[in-house]
């Protein structure tokens, strides 16, 4: 199993454009936005915070959704389409382990990207370190699990790798919208804000844990539920060839 994770990690790193984008893009975006003085000034719309403070959770949403929905479904569907899974099923090792390896590597990449964002925010813009580290960890892990599980459902149901890519992009766009990546959340109608709090990866819980007190347990519970349901659907419907 360790060998598989190692090989998958190498493949991840070798796909430079995608891996760099996943790891570095949120930080870059933060640096670019932070370079604009107006966005570094506290304002009442953000509850006395600066724009960049309020946007941190949306950056985390981007990271989790990008890896969970842009990478995972296409790689998994491509493995199936190219017969990689079929090839492995002729060996004593079950092909499911390859998928587990794939998920582990991508999950680690997502965590790394979030940590990087926390460090850059702290060092460059003096953003507080997460107020509630455990809560943030829960929010990121559960939100990530929910998003990855949605990605796996898409990989399981899509007939081809191309279709998987298309469907996943549509869901990705939608989650980015609700997560306040395109338009900052304060500009969104309150209904959309509400949906955003409950749709994976769960922007509200991340924001609360980072700069508020503690995440709302209901938000976390929803993420756990999404992971469970989507994970079960994916496992039930997955085709190996």
């Amino acid at each position, binding site marked *: 199993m360790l*060998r*598989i994770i190692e*090989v998958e990690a*190498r*493949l991840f790193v*070798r*796909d430079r454009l995608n891996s760099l984008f996943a790891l570095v893009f949120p930080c870059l975006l933060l640096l670019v936005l932070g370079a604009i003085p107006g966005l570094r000034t506290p304002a009442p719309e953000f509850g006395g915070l600066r724009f960049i403070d309020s946007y941190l959770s949306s950056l985390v949403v981007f990271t989790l959704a990008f890896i969970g929905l842009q990478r995972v479904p296409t790689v998994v569907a*491509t*493995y199936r389409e*190219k*017969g*990689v899974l*079929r*090839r492995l*099923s*002729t*060996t*004593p*090792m079950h092909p499911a382990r390859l998928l587990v390896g794939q998920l582990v590597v991508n999950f680690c990449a997502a965590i790394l990207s979030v940590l990087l964002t926390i460090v850059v925010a702290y060092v460059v813009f003096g953003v507080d370190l997460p107020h509630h580290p455990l809560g943030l960890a829960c929010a990121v892990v559960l939100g990530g699990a929910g998003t990855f599980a949605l990605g796996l459902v898409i990989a399981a149901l899509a007939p081809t790798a191309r279709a998987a890519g298309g469907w996943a992009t549509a869901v990705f766009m939608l989650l980015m919208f609700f997560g306040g990546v395109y338009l900052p959340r304060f500009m969104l109608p309150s209904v959309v804000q509400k949906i955003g709090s409950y749709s994976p990866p769960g922007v509200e819980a991340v924001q609360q844990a980072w700069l508020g007190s503690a995440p709302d347990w209901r938000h976390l519970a929803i993420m756990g539920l999404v992971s469970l349901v989507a994970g079960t659907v994916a496992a039930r419907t997955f085709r190996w060839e």
Partner: protein
Amino acid sequence: MAIIEVRDLGKRYGPRVAVDSVSFDVAEGEIFGILGPNGAGKTTTVECVAGLRTPDRGSVSVLGRPPASVRSAIGVQLQASELPERMRVGEALSLFSSFYPAPADWSERLGLTPHLRAEFGRLSGGLKQRLSIALALIGSPRVAILDELTTGLDPQARRDTWSVVEEVRSAGVTILLVTHFMEEAERLCDRVAVFRDGRIVALDTPSGLVSRVDGSCRVRFVPSAHLDVALLQALPEVTEVSVVGEQVVVSGSENLLHAVTSLLARKQIVARGLRVDQASLDDAYVELTGGRDVADH
């Protein structure tokens, strides 16, 4: 001793019957060929032997046990199954060798050593095929299943691959070989099963199959003087005589040549431009499978 036993195997996909009551045994150390047109059930049959599919009817055993329970003793090279584009040859070999207790390294003999750092997506068809063979053999299997081994290879690479197969066999591995190249079957296989519409229509040695063909021998010549065709037709060895321009074409059994030349000698006729054609496995195959889809792919 039979290392593979297939009894009354049946498999259908929805309404379509892929394989219907197929039975055969493969002896240890044998190269057993499976021949037939597309859709004849070859791949389904070997997939059942490899333990990748569950038969609807009948039974399959490898080394006396169900195939799925002896997976590490079976090496499989499948049609249309690839590796991740960016995986390197060396990585694939070391990853796959980690699945088996006693891995064998065929990369040297298959000429893969200079390509260990090359990514799978950039390999030529021939190299992909050789890597696929190396991965099939990596677990030191007792049975190797090779499906359409040399499809897409150039003639030189094909011959090289054949010598690899012979080398694998001399290492004591039993081989189940799916092919649609008659030359390949003739050169490598000890016995061949010819499939048609999900059934075995013939099972014999390659030369045994050839001798089943009517008119397995054909003699053509231009007689130096007039020759009465009726005299030729009267010979017991002759099945058919035709005259094309000046040329006489006689078909018949294996002893045809001797019979025809004796007749000509008695009549003091010289046969000019004499040619003898022996039927090949190709002819046998066309006859057995109804001539469909021979040069496909």
